[in-house]
C-alpha cells in the first residue's frame, strides 16, 4: 500500500528562505528581548520603570536634595518642605550607639566593639590560621571580658544595665541569643530524634511550645514571670530576662532547622559510624553533626537574621535598643520636627539592612564554599 499521500508531514518542496533575524546582540536587541517582548511586557516595563523612578526619586529627594545638613536644634528642620534632618542624627549618634551609657565610660563599650570585630573578622575568613584558638577566644574568653568591661568590677566603675542601650544592646541580645541558642538547639534536635520516649516527648513539648507563641508574649513572660520563678531575694537583672526568653525561643526554631539536617543524612553514615565502634556522642559529634549542620547553613542563618531583627522587640519591655533609642528621641522637644522621625527610621533601617543583608550574603558564600561533598 502506498502511503506517501498519508504521510502529510513529509515535506516535498523547499520552503522560501526566511529573512535573517534582526540583530540579536547589542543593547537594542537586549531591550527587545528583556523589556518589550510582548505588548503586556511593554506595559509592565512602563509600570516597573515608573515605580522604580518614583521610589528612587522620593528617597533621593528626601535624604539629599531637600535635606537639612547643619543646625544645632530642630529649628532648622522645622521649615516647611524640609527633608531629612541630618543634624539630629549627628547630635544623637552617640546615643544611638551607646544608649544612656555614662559618657566618660564610653571607651569601655568602644573597646568591646573593637575586640568583637578583631576576633570575629579572622574567624569568618577561612584562610586565617589558628581557628581553634580564635574560636576559644571568641566564644569563651570574649563574653567574660566583655561582661566585666561593660558592667564593671576589677577597678572599673559599676554601670547599671538599665543605662545600656542603642546598638550596644541590639548586638548584646543578638550575639548572646546566637551563642546560647545554637548548642541548646543541637541538643533539642537530638532529643527530638532520640529513641528514648521520655526524652523525645519532653523535647517535642519544649519545641512546639516556644514555636507556637509570639515572641512578644515570651518577652512579657520573661520580664513578668521570671522574677516570680526565682527564690525570694534573688533578683534577675532586667537585661538578662529578655536574653533568657530570646535564647529559649530561638533554640526551639534552630532545633527544627537542625532536625531537618539530621533527617537528610543517609542511614549509611550512622551505620558506618556504629560499625567503627563510635559511641553515640562521638558518632553525632564527629560524623553526623558536621554534615547535618553544613546542609542547613541557610536555615541557621535565616534564624539568626530573624533573631537580629527581633531584637527590636525588647523595646516593648522597656529596654532601649537601637530602635528604642530612636523611638524615645522622637518626642525630644528640642529636635521635634515633621521629618525627624522619618530620618531616624531611615538610619535604623539602613543599619539593620546592612547587618541582615551582610549575614545572608556571607552565608550564601559559605554555602558555596562548603558545597563539596554532594557533587559527584
Amino acid at each position, binding site marked *: 500500500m502506498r502511503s506517501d499521500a498519508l504521510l502529510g508531514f513529509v515535506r516535498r518542496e523547499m520552503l522560501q528562505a526566511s529573512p535573517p533575524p534582526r540583530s540579536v546582540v547589542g543593547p537594542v536587541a537586549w531591550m527587545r528581548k528583556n523589556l518589550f517582548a510582548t505588548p503586556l511586557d511593554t506595559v509592565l516595563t512602563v509600570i516597573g520603570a515608573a515605580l*522604580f523612578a518614583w521610589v528612587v526619586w522620593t528617597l533621593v529627594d528626601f535624604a539629599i536634595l531637600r535635606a537639612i545638613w547643619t543646625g544645632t536644634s530642630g529649628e532648622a528642620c522645622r521649615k516647611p518642605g524640609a527633608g531629612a534632618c541630618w543634624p539630629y542624627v549627628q547630635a544623637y549618634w552617640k546615643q544611638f550607639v551607646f544608649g544612656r551609657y555614662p559618657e566618660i565610660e564610653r571607651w569601655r563599650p568602644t573597646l568591646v566593639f573593637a575586640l568583637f570585630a578583631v576576633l570575629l573578622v579572622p574567624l569568618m575568613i577561612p584562610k586565617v590560621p589558628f581557628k581553634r584558638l580564635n574560636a576559644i577566644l571568641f566564644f569563651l574568653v570574649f563574653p567574660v571580658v566583655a561582661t566585666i568591661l561593660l558592667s564593671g568590677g576589677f577597678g572599673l566603675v559599676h554601670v547599671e544595665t538599665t543605662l545600656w542601650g542603642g546598638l550596644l544592646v541590639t548586638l548584646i541580645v543578638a550575639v548572646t541569643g546566637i551563642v546560647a541558642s545554637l548548642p541548646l538547639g543541637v541538643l533539642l534536635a537530638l532529643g527530638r530524634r532520640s529513641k528514648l520516649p521520655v526524652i523525645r516527648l519532653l523535647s517535642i513539648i519544649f519545641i512546639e511550645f516556644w514555636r507556637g507563641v509570639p515572641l512578644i508574649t515570651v518577652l512579657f513572660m520573661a520580664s513578668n514571670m521570671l522574677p516570680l520563678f*526565682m527564690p*525570694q531575694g534573688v533578683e534577675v537583672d532586667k537585661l538578662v530576662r529578655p536574653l533568657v526568653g530570646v535564647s529559649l525561643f530561638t533554640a526551639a526554631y534552630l532545633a527544627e532547622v537542625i532536625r531537618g539536617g539530621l533527617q537528610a543524612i543517609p542511614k549509611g553514615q550512622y551505620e558506618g559510624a556504629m560499625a567503627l565502634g563510635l559511641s553515640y556522642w562521638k558518632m553525632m559529634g564527629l560524623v553526623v553533626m558536621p554534615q547535618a549542620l553544613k546542609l542547613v547553613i541557610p536555615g541557621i542563618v535565616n534564624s539568626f537574621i530573624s533573631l537580629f531583627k527581633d531584637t527590636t522587640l525588647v523595646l516593648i519591655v522597656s529596654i532601649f535598643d537601637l530602635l528604642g533609642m530612636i523611638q524615645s528621641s522622637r518626642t525630644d522637644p528640642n529636635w521635634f520636627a515633621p521629618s525627624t522621625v522619618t530620618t531616624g527610621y531611615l538610619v535604623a533601617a539602613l543599619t539593620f539592612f546592612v547587618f541582615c543583608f551582610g549575614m545572608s550574603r556571607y552565608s550564601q558564600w559559605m554555602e558555596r564554599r562548603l558545597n563539596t561533598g554532594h557533587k559527584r
Partner: protein
Amino acid sequence: MSTSSNAGTSGAGPSGSAKVTWYYDPKVRGVIYQVITLGAVVALAAIIIHNTAVNLASRNIAQGYGFLTTSAGFDLAMTPIDFPRDATYGRAIMVGLVNTLLVAAIGIIFASLFGFLAGVGRLSQNYLISRVSTIYVEVCRNVPLLLQIFFWYFAVLQVLPNPRNSVEPIPGWIFLNNRGLFLPEVKLTEATGWAILGGLVVGVIGAIAVSRWARQRQIATGAQFPAGKVGLALILGLPILGLVVTGLGLTLVAPVKGGFNVAGGTRVIPEFAALVVALSVYTGTYIAEIVRAGILAVSWGQTEAARSLGLPNGPTLRLIIIPQAMRVIIPPLTNQYLNLTKNSSLAVAIGFPDLVYVGGTVLNQTGQAIEIIAIWMAIYLGLSVATSVFMNWYNARVAIVER
C-alpha cells in the same frame, strides 16, 4: 549470639561472664538517662511552682480567673463586637481576640497578593519587573517588622492632615486624615440583608454542586463544562438578584466632615491600617520567596510535556504547573500565615487593641501576670495546633504517591 564481652576491661567488676555488664547495657542506660532527665524536669518544675506560690503570697496577688468577670473600665479604639462601658475584662479580651483575627485575616489576603505578585515577578522574563521585585523582597525582608510598623504609623499616617484639611479621593464620600480613613457606611434594610446573605449561601452551595456534577460528567463522558464561570455567576448573581428583588434596600451613608472630626461612616483607624500594611508588606517578601521556590521546583520537563500534548499556555499553568507547585508552596505558606498571625501581636507597640495589647492593659490593672500570659499562650498555641493539623491533612491529601 553473644559476643565475648570487652566490658570487663574497663575495670568495672570481675563478673567475667559473657554478658555485658549491666551499666553498659543500652536498654538499662536508656532507662537511667530517662529517669534522670524526668527527675530533673520534675524537680525544676516543683521548684518553680513553689517559688511562684511563695512570691505571689508575699505580693498579695490573688490567683485564679475570677478577675475576668469584673468590670474593665477602659476604652478600646476599635470594637468590632459590642463593648459597653461596664463590660468585663473577659469581654475586653474577647474584643482583642476578634481584632487579632481581623488583622490576621485581612493581612493574609494582602500578603498573599503581594507575595504572589513579587514571586512571579522575580521569575519574569521582563528585566525591569524582576529587578523591582528583587529589590522589594531584599529590602523589606531585611528591615525589622517593628520598624516598618513604626514607619507606617508615625512617619506616614500621623503626618496626614487634620480632619479639617482631609484628603478626599472622592470628594464628599471618602476622607483620609490623621484620625483614620473614613468610608461611606453601607446601610441595608433587614429584608435586603437577609436576601443578600441567603443569595450568597445558596450561590456557594450551588457552585459547589455544579463543580461536583461537572467533574462527575467529565470523568464519565469526557465532556467539559465551564463550572468555574457558572459558579462565579451563581455566587455573584444570586445576592444581586436578592438585592433587586427586595427593592434595592441599600443606602450608602457618607461621612460628614465637622470642625474637628469626621462623623458617621465607617472608620478605619490608623493603627489598624499601619499594622495591616506593615504585616502584608513584610510577610509578602517571605511568601514571594516561597512562591518562587515552588514554581522553580516544578521541572521544566513538565512544561515541555504539556506543550507536546498541545496544551496552550493557560491550561499548562493551571492544570500542570500550579497543582505541582502548590505541593511545595502550601506547607511553608501556611507557616507564613501563622507567623503573620503571631506577628500581629506587635500591635501592642502602636496601641492597636489586639489580644496582646488588651491583655497587657488588663495585666497592668490587675497584676494577674500568670493568668493573662496563660490565656495568650493558650490562644496562640491553639491557633498553631489548628494550623498544623490542617497543614498535615492537606499535605497528606496532595502528597505525591510514590511507587
